């Protein structure tokens, strides 16, 4: 206490010690970025937010996970010699759930800060705009990776419980997990950019879901036309149109998985093109986000 010369008497009670200065640690940008990453990841599943905002993400996680559990049980019950659904096909099969997750959660990750202008508070702190975008992007990517990785892992667990040989299961599982990581990066990037461009309530959800649905529909239509004309090469390249077929093409071409949409990228050149496009999309989304937030305050 800062009152040295007065003898302490037992009657004195200090109810309020007034304003206290903070002398503790001030951790640097990497701590802040990590905190924001964790916060974003939790926020994507509604943790730390209202009870209502937990419903959607966990419902969708359930939609992704339950089929994997059911498949595991069925496989072990009727002694199948292989899983009825492949690891690498799983995400594309349940892409609707992933798309809805993107639509419902990416506005919460980005547009919320923009709509309520919380960004001004972030940027008046040590974090730079790039670091803010990195944390948000990484948080959303991690959330998506969980959404896809957890059911895939449960699928593997189910297969092993059904006493299918690990040696047969593991390569495809690893391909699928690598694919999930790429899916997460590409899908998170696109959905965050779309959400950040549409900060108004409700519009973001519709815009994100709309973009993915339109691209998927467009891709299916164009490919059907290409198939009609019998142009296999062009038909293969139509996978570039939709993010899901794009990543599927990379997983098929690069890791040697079976394409889940029939026609993978044509040959080594096709694989290179698909991979390059993935890299371009990720880098482009990051750059677009940084540009978007540069505009946010000035």
């Amino acid at each position, binding site marked *: *206490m*800062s*009152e*040295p*010369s*007065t*003898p*302490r*008497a*037992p*009657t*004195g*009670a*200090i*109810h*309020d*010690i*007034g*304003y*206290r*200065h*903070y*002398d*503790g*640690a*001030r*951790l*640097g*940008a990497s*701590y*802040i970025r990590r*905190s*924001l990453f964790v*916060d974003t990841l939790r926020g994507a599943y509604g943790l*730390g*937010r*209202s009870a209502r*905002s937990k419903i959607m993400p966990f419902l969708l996680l359930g939609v992704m996970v339950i089929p994997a559990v059911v498949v595991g049980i069925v496989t072990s019950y009727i002694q199948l010699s292989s899983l009825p659904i492949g690891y690498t096909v799983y995400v594309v099969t349940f892409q609707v759930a992933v798309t809805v997750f993107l639509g419902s959660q990416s506005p919460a990750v980005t547009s*919320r*800060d923009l709509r*309520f*202008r*919380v960004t*001004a*508070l*972030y*940027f*008046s*702190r*040590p*974090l*730079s705009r790039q670091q803010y975008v990195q944390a948000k992007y990484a948080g959303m990517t991690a959330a998506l990776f969980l959404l896809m990785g957890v059911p895939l892992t449960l699928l593997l667990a189910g297969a092993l419980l059904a006493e299918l040989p690990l040696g047969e299961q593991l390569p495809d599982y690893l391909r699928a997990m690598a694919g999930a990581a790429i899916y997460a990066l590409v899908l998170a990037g696109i959905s965050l950019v779309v959400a950040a461009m549409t900060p108004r309530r409700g519009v973001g959800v519709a815009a994100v879901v709309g973009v993915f649905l339109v691209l998927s529909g467009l891709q299916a239509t164009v490919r059907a036309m290409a198939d009609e004309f019998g142009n296999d090469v062009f038909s293969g390249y139509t996978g570039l149109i939709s993010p899901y077929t794009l990543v599927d093409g990379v997983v098929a071409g690069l890791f040697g998985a079976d394409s889940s949409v029939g026609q993978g990228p044509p040959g080594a050149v096709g694989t290179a093109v698909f991979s390059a496009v993935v890299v371009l999309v990720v880098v482009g989304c990051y750059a677009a986000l940084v540009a978007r937030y540069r505009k946010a*305050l*000035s």
Partner: protein
Amino acid sequence: MDVIAAQGLAGVDTVGSSMGTRTVLELARRGVGGDAVALDPGGVWRSGGRRFSAPRSPVHDPRVTKGRTVLACGRRQHRLPVPGAGADGGLLPDMRWRVHRVSVPRATRVEAGTVSLIRTDGLTKRFGSVTAVTDLTVDVSTGVTGLVGANGAGKSTLLKILLGLLPATAGSASVLGLDVATDGPSIRERVGYMPEHDCLPPDVSATEFVVHMARMSGLPTTSARERAADILRHVGLYEERYRPMGGYSTGMRQRVKLAQALVHDPSLVLLDEPTNGLDPAGRDDMLGLIRRIGSEFGISVIVTSHLLGELERVSDGIVVIDGGQLLRHSTTASVTAETALVSVEVDDNQAGLHARLTAAGIAVRSDGRLLYVDVRDTTVYDTVRDAVAELGLGLVRIERQRHRMTEIFTASPDSSRSPSGHGDAHV
């Protein structure tokens, strides 16, 4: 014991801003009466951990304290951390102040105006063809500084430049000795910023939000929780801080915005129009808080407003900008310097006092409930005091009359742009 005191003196938030305090100081400085002086010592001697004094705390004024016993008063129980001292000692019993003897920690004295807080040199900012700030050169020292100017005068732009968020087109600026162009992150670590606009997400509680913002300033989670709870109490948010902020009133929202700017214990806070949208009571609360941040918390404050009257009440210095240019930079003290008039308010028999003072050869003018007394020399104070005592009156206040800050504008060469009214002038 003969004690100098005045009503309002020990008011919790009034040190330095209360006219009552100033009156007492004036009396004490002039050697009037008393072997003791009663002062609300603000945060000087009771802040735990690091000590800090109000820059102009009367407790540190040797003219006030020399040869006298310093008595500390507090209206609230929590303002009385000095244990064991006697009861009220007969001093102003109707206020139920408890009076304690305190020592004055000289070593903690912080002089206002010794440290350069913000320095700009030829600072210019253009947005395309629009020039927001033009060749601005100021040197702002510690304490509470008001930044006044009309809407669009360049106040918010200046704050953003100072935070290192906007690059200046020309010129240079430093904050806390750090260059805004190169040391942006270091500046932002030690500076708090309260934006003018709404910036609170509605779906989280104030506690969660302020904790999050503390962590975004680099505080570890445990410290962030502690600091957030502390600072929310200081700004006056209690039970409601656990509710989502969507249901908050404007006053509460402004408090949360202020709390997030202070939660990391900055050396300087930049407050952009903190009284915007508040009703008169909320405005008073906010101004009181700002004064406390400057004095009790020991944090320097830059506060913008287009209401001059507000800044007059809380700031040590004033920077007036107009059209991005510096119009005037001065201390509030010099702007609101004393006049030779003292207003006296008594609870009864005003006419009797008037007559008695007139009889003593003092020029007195009566205006409503107040008597304006011309103090040509210091003996007038004694005469007033003695007259009040002999008549058995309650002295409500003695207040030195001051020049109003609005007079800057009537006196400035650019007065054509500045209406000179009473009260809050919209500049």
